[in-house]
């Protein structure tokens, strides 16, 4: 019968389409982004951060970078604590992405010092030689438009102060981008929670082992040189030529990083690589 009645057919088709729509798309609004999944400490973006986010959107960063860490072992080890619904309540639009040509950025905030981001955005290949990320040095040439940013932040209904708007004067798009990246995933104290303590005696398994030193040198090149320099002369991070530290203390720092000092922990490299690195760093002292 419906095959001969187009109006009836269209009504039936609409109802059929709406069934799954209502259950899986409309109904979740009852729970999602309500008090049920709010997280204390998650704050709206400041005008500068929001402008950075809008630039992130404009440049299509979401085409290569995701912003959601899944609750999977390898993922939490690589990126940090898994993402929670309440962390995204101010994200309009969401920027979870669908493809990781580059790494996930959900927990990037606070991982590196600002200087790292400026250098990396200027020329990603100067820090990560084989990356395919294009240069974004040109963002420095564009001054921020305070009136536009104020208009946008009002459209979003986020709180702001006139001081924050005044502070935009003289800043460029790169400043906004870095401010945004430093906010990502840092509203909850997950780094503190993820800190680990090494128990028991730490003994260097390869003291003065030439092979381990050579291996450590290669670990250094791919993980440390971007900040500490090819020759350990120091760039963003301090020089590492003359370390006055015993093996165990050095291992602790490599493992946990210096969270307040801008150095990320490297525990996910594993103990073998970290000990190789310790042995390399203890060589060629001046």
């Amino acid at each position, binding site marked *: 019968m419906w095959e001969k009645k187009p109006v009836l057919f269209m009504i039936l*088709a609409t109802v059929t389409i709406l069934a799954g729509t209502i259950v899986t798309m409309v109904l979740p609004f009852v729970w*999602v982004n309500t008090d049920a999944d709010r997280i204390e400490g998650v704050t709206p973006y400041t005008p500068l951060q929001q402008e950075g986010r809008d630039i992130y959107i404009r440049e299509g960063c979401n085409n290569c970078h995701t912003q959601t860490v899944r609750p999977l072992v390898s993922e939490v080890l690589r990126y940090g604590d898994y993402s929670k619904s309440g962390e995204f309540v101010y994200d309009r639009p969401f920027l979870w992405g669908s493809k*990781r040509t580059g790494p996930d950025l959900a927990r990037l905030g606070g991982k590196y010092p600002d200087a790292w981001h400026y250098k990396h955005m200027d020329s990603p290949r100067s820090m990560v030689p084989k990356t395919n990320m294009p240069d974004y040095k040109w963002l420095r040439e564009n001054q921020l438009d305070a009136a536009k940013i104020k*208009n*946008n932040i009002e459209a979003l209904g986020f709180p702001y102060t006139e001081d924050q708007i005044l502070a935009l004067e003289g800043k460029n798009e790169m400043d906004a981008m870095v401010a945004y990246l430093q906010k990502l995933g840092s509203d909850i104290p997950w780094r503190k929670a993820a800190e680990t303590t090494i128990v028991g005696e730490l003994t260097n398994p390869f003291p003065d082992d030439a092979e381990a030193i050579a291996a450590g040198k290669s670990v250094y090149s791919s993980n440390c040189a971007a900040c500490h320099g090819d020759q350990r002369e120091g760039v963003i991070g301090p020089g590492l030529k003359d370390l006055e530290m015993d093996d165990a203390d050095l291992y602790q720092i490599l493992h946990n990083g210096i969270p307040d000092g801008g150095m990320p922990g490297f525990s996910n490299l*594993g103990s073998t690589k970290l000990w190789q690195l310790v042995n390399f760093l203890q060589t060629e002292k001046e």
Partner: protein
Amino acid sequence: MEKPSYNTDIVRSFVTWSLVWGLVAVLVGVIVSLQMVNPDLNFPPYLTFGRLRPIHTNAGIYGWAVGTIFATFLYMVQRLCKQPLWSDKLAKFQLWFFNATIIASAVTLLLGYTTSKEYHEMEWPIDVMVVILWVAFAINIIMTIMKRREEQMYISLWFMMASLIGIAILYLVNSAAVPASLFKSYSAYAGTNDANVHWWFGHNAVAMALTAPPLAMFYYFLPKSTGVPIYSHRISIVAFWSLIFMYLWTGAHHLLWTPVPDWIQTLAMAFSIMLIAPSWGSVINGYLSMNGQWHQMKENYLVKFLILGITFYGLQTLQGPMQSIRSFSAFIHYTDWVPAHIHMGTMGWVSMISFASIYYLAPRMYDREIYSIPLANLHFWLALIGQLIWSISLWVAGVLQAGMWNAMNSDGSLTYTFMETMVEMYPYWWARAFGGVIYLLGIVVFIYNLYMTARKSEPAPSTATAEGRV
């Protein structure tokens, strides 16, 4: 009975423009695939990967696929209803407005005006244009159906009407935003809600724009090409209604393991598996329609495109549900496996059916025999081989990268840094770019063949008289 005079000019114009945007889509696809292997090919601010990739996807979906939908629907609706188009003027408006919309999209995306939502990147003024365009199209199709002279509505008309309704609902809901200025808006939804609404849209755009319309074409052009009817009307009824029912539950399979509530993910996973049945209903209906006609695979190049197309649909609708299973998604999601999956659907299924439909239309649009069947065969092989190289290389790449991301040492630490896994991708990305170039060559051969058909080929009065066109 008096022969109605069908509007074929509008079909020809839509074919021309869908080919233009299809060429743009594939060309930009090749460019961004080369940017993946060499970052020096990014020319900021306009010609960077981040801005060009949405142009590739939107030119493919809104230019090539939707353009072909316009052309074929406007053709089919007149024949299936035995009724000329309700309004030729509205169709003419639709043609110009279609091109205006695509050009406006391309320009604004290049300028960086984007919502960031995948396959729906265009900012709100373009959304308004898309809605006007779709309403103009829908009115013309529906009014023609209302005035039809053939009482029974054929299968293709069901898929067409479902697509008209479905896309309208999806697009309107996902467009909801607060405009901040002329080319900047903020989504009406936030965070997890926004993600869930968006992938409800994203996956069902695949259903309503890239599944239902090619099925409408398949159900029409396969019997037209072979000369024998579809095997089972009953299978097509069951497949149709279960397809449009089940699809809408599955959007969250794009969001497995994210903060979207677990029960939505579980429903999405279950319905994705169930979707195999209606998808394969159409595949099997297509195959069984070939009973006693398989010799046409050799003799009739249209059949070759159509059967390979429906075969890729079958493969696509097995692989998709597999990826929707939580454990498999945990492994494969976010790797290059996923674009390989998408491109089997777009290059293998949607485009193969679209190629066949346009080849079928060519003599009827130009009143001339197709210029060269050998060139059409060459196009077939370039498209098939190009797509296989594209997808297979990235399936391998995806499994490799997923394996490396998950590899752990005995002390529980990760074996590889992110960069160590990324550098392994380069050879596969080169292979993908190579596959894309082959596919592009196929498109060039296709367009050349159609151009020569329109310009130089022998007149084919037989088809025009047979269909009673003036």
